């Protein structure tokens, strides 16, 4: 069963506009959530994270929102830049001695000039 789901395989956004990437999870034991960004032929790079005790975390152009009741998180990128074009993975961990990350399938974001 897919515990972390990213239902949009791809997203296209115009440069300067807001990009919103979505992620849903099913495991209520997850208490820490992350977004990773991946360029071709490279490993995933950590972008931003959020603990389950918060509902928002902001870092520059990137903001992650967590809605625990809906088991949903989203990543907002404002303003979007061409260098943001990459595959974005949502990931979660449950913190009960289990550091392993459970990843979604990824969303390919393309920023158009």
């Amino acid at each position, binding site marked *: 069963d897919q515990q972390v789901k990213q239902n949009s395989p791809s997203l296209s956004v115009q440069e300067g506009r807001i990009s919103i990437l979505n992620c849903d999870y099913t495991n209520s034991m997850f208490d820490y959530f992350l977004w990773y960004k991946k360029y071709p032929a490279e490993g995933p790079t950590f972008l931003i*994270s959020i603990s389950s005790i918060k509902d928002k975390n902001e870092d520059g152009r990137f903001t992650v929102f967590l809605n625990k009741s809906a088991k949903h998180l989203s990543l907002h990128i404002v303003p979007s830049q061409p260098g943001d074009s990459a595959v974005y993975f949502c990931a979660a961990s449950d913190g009960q001695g289990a550091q392993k990350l459970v990843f979604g399938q990824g969303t390919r974001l393309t920023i158009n000039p």
Partner: protein
Amino acid sequence: GAGVSQSPRYKVAKRGQDVALRCDPISGHVSLFWYQQALGQGPEFLTYFQNEAQLDKSGLPSDRFFAERPEGSVSTLKIQRTQQEDSAVYLCASSLAVLNTDTQYFGPGTRLTVL
């Protein structure tokens, strides 16, 4: 500073061959993870080391997969008698300590193709 490195970057194996994939974590990082990423999917957990101790191997798909980290630094993932379904990118990650909030830093991966 140096990040996580993996070698080889690409490996082609004939079905039935054994392969060994190497991971050099960031110096001083206690935790080391292996993930498998199939085409078009997200990474999937294989195994976890805390120093030299393999604390979780629940994600290893079969007994053909074996991982070790004998001195608590470099790790090797070995796949015996490779099958076509083993074709994937194998990612290694390390983190400084043992909390789930410690950031995992990933290497570039080894792309394994089994013919």
